[in-house]
């Protein structure tokens, strides 16, 4: 086929081309007006200032430490600490090293953080949903709770629970009994301690097996639904498997789990698990305080899902439960997760307020007592800050990864 011939308008020679003059090179600006020169100069100046600043700090610190006779280096970690610690998750006594005090403090920090995260999430989600309730009274109560607790400093709340509530409780003989199993007095909260009897390992094994089975089931169900469109009640079956199988094994083995209940002998309680009042106060204050922020995050997340989404779901014939689970929650979680993570981070950092009431966390044990005894401020403050920095950076890296996986993929 012939290519169509474009008619050339009369008056223009067929072979006319436009010849462009080569662009004249822009006149070089004066050096102090050239953005590149300015940028480089400024950066060199900044770098020089930073180097000078840190070098001065370093130099001053070395001089000062030499004058005050402070040792440097990390040798102190192997020296005997020689002080007792109120509570420890691993065996510890005062003949152990400063390195060990670091681990004890770190574990105590992690313990109170995990407890706080669990309880604040539970309370926070409940209050956040209550805040959106159509029931006027319920949403008002949630509002009053949030606005009261959120606007009072956390340290004050920790003091309140510790000095005004737990420390003024009656002694062991007049303990408050919670169903004759747990007891609350000024020495702490005594709860029954679970005692595994022989054969309990099988229950744990069954739990792990059920978990693996449930994950496999979920994968199979998803593949089948993608291939055939047939849904499978994954959630109910999986839950039934994870709870039911260990329970069945547990009962079949004749319930191999005993509870050691605390009992009053003489002047104090024996047996059971004792939670020191410092831990109880800190957990209470941290959970109640952080829960108010989590509640606001949850409320914001649910409100962020536009009403059109719900309407579209009902137009497709989804029932309210399915709408919530398949449409609203996944979109709300995308909004909720990032601020929720930063609330968890705040909680972990706030747990360092433990030192104010003497709960032996990392800051109290290591940056408090160990620092006072060794005087090696730079190493100890550095190590403590490094722990918190590591936790923060690890969690924010994880969150960035999650964020990029969950972000809306447009075009």
């Amino acid at each position, binding site marked *: 086929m012939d290519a169509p011939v474009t008619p050339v308008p009369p008056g223009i020679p067929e072979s006319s081309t436009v010849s462009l003059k080569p662009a004249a090179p822009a006149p070089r600006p004066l050096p102090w007006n050239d953005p590149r020169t300015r*940028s480089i100069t*400024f*950066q*060199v100046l*900044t*770098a020089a200032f*930073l180097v000078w600043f840190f070098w001065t*700090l370093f130099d*001053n*610190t070395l*001089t*000062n*430490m030499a*004058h005050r006779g402070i040792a440097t280096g990390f040798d102190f970690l192997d020296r005997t600490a020689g002080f007792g610690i109120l509570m420890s998750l691993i065996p510890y006594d005062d003949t152990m090293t400063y390195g060990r005090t670091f681990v004890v403090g770190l574990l105590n920090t992690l313990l109170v953080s995990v407890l706080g995260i669990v309880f604040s999430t539970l309370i926070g989600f409940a209050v956040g949903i209550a805040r959106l*309730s*159509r*029931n*006027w*009274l*319920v949403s008002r*109560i949630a509002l009053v709770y949030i*606005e*009261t607790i*959120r*606007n*009072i*400093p*956390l*340290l*004050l709340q920790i*003091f*309140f629970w510790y*000095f*005004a509530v737990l420390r*003024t409780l009656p002694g062991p003989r007049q303990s408050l009994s919670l169903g004759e199993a747990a007891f609350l007095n000024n020495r702490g909260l005594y709860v029954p301690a679970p005692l595994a009897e022989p054969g309990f390992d099988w229950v744990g094994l069954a739990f792990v097996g059920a978990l693996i089975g449930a994950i496999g089931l979920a994968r199979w169900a998803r593949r089948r639904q993608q291939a055939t469109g047939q849904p499978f009640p994954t959630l109910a079956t999986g839950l039934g498997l994870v709870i039911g199988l260990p329970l069945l094994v547990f009962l079949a083995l004749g319930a191999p789990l005993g509870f050691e209940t605390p009992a009053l002998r003489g002047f104090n309680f024996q047996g059971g698990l004792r939670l020191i009042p410092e831990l109880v106060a800190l957990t209470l204050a941290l959970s109640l305080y952080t829960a108010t922020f989590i509640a606001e995050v949850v409320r914001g997340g649910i409100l962020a899902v536009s009403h059109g989404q719900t309407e579209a779901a009902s137009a497709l014939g989804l029932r309210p439960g399915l709408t919530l689970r398949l449409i609203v929650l996944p979109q709300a979680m995308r909004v909720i997760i990032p601020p929720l993570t930063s609330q968890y981070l705040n909680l972990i*950092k*706030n747990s*360092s*307020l433990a*030192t*104010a009431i003497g709960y032996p966390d990392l*800051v109290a044990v290591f*940056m408090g007592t160990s*620092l006072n005894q060794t005087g090696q*401020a*730079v190493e100890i*403050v550095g190590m*403590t*800050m490094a722990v*918190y*920095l590591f936790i*923060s*950076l690890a969690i924010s890296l994880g969150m960035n990864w999650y964020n990029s996986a969950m972000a809306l993929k447009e075009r």
Partner: protein
Amino acid sequence: MAVFEAKPALPPPVLTRGPVGWARQNLLSSPLNVGLTLVGVVLIVALVVPAVDWALLNATFRGTTADACTGTGACWPFVTTRLDFFVYGFYPPPERWRVNVLFALLALVIVPQLLPRFPGRRALAVFGFLGLPVLAAVLLLGGIAGLPFVETGKWGGLMLTLVLAMVGILAALPVGVVLALGRRSKMVVVRVSCTTFIEFWRGVPLISVLFMASVMLPLFLPEGVNFDKLLRALIGIIMFQSAYMAEVVRGGLQAIPRGQFEAAHALGLGYWRTMGLIILPQALKLVIPGIVNTFIALFKDTTLVLIIGLLDVLGSVQAAIVDPAWNRVAVEGYVFAGLCYWVFCFGMSRYSHALERKLQTGHKR
């Protein structure tokens, strides 16, 4: 021909209007809601009634010693007899008028900001940002113009809390803006150093920052140079909060569309004028709620200075409740301190809500 005459409409059924209708709709719409309402009522009765009993009905209000408190309720004389201590700390009594003048000036600057039509509101705000801090330093420290010098070690109570919060707020915002601009800069050295600074301070707890300020700062400085304890705490608080402020401001900067930058460049504006005249006014307006939230966090965080030995409101209450002359007054003390903080923080959050609504111009369809 019959004319159709509409009869007046019947009123809505009795059960759907008035308080009854409201209650049926908002409290009793379903069995679940009835249950929730009951739980709520029980909760209120169980908490509010004893609290009112304790704080008002059975409380003692008059008297000057612990013996006056005979009832089963709160012992408010504990607070009233020590009110001066809770407000001024150890500030010498003959000089306390200076603190009162400062309080009055603060009120003079802040109250008009809540009344949009107050004449000279802007001028007062500028004075609050630029003139008041200098005036406050002169007034509180003294040592010039015939005012006796009062060392910062004697400051305490509500006055110390307000000084910490005010200086922190005034310093953290500009530092935070500069850090946020630095983090978004094209210059590698500037960007990396600002990012490191921000992530470092955001990653550690404030208490370790204060420890560092009180234990390590003396080591960092040349020999013979030493800072006042209050100043060290302030430096710690400002470093810490400006990093949070920077992240809030960065959120606002990121929300400004590229066209705004390009339009500013097309008009021939340089970097500083682009930022100062075009970008920052829009960005800061967008993040007002975040900025105020940072201020509220800062206000609450000032309580931590008691750990390094400064007596703010909470610190002075804490020091007072261990007095053996009074027993079991911890709750009264904490309620008083909590009320002090709550009033300021709640006030700020309400103000930010109002401001947000007022500034919402043109973005709503």
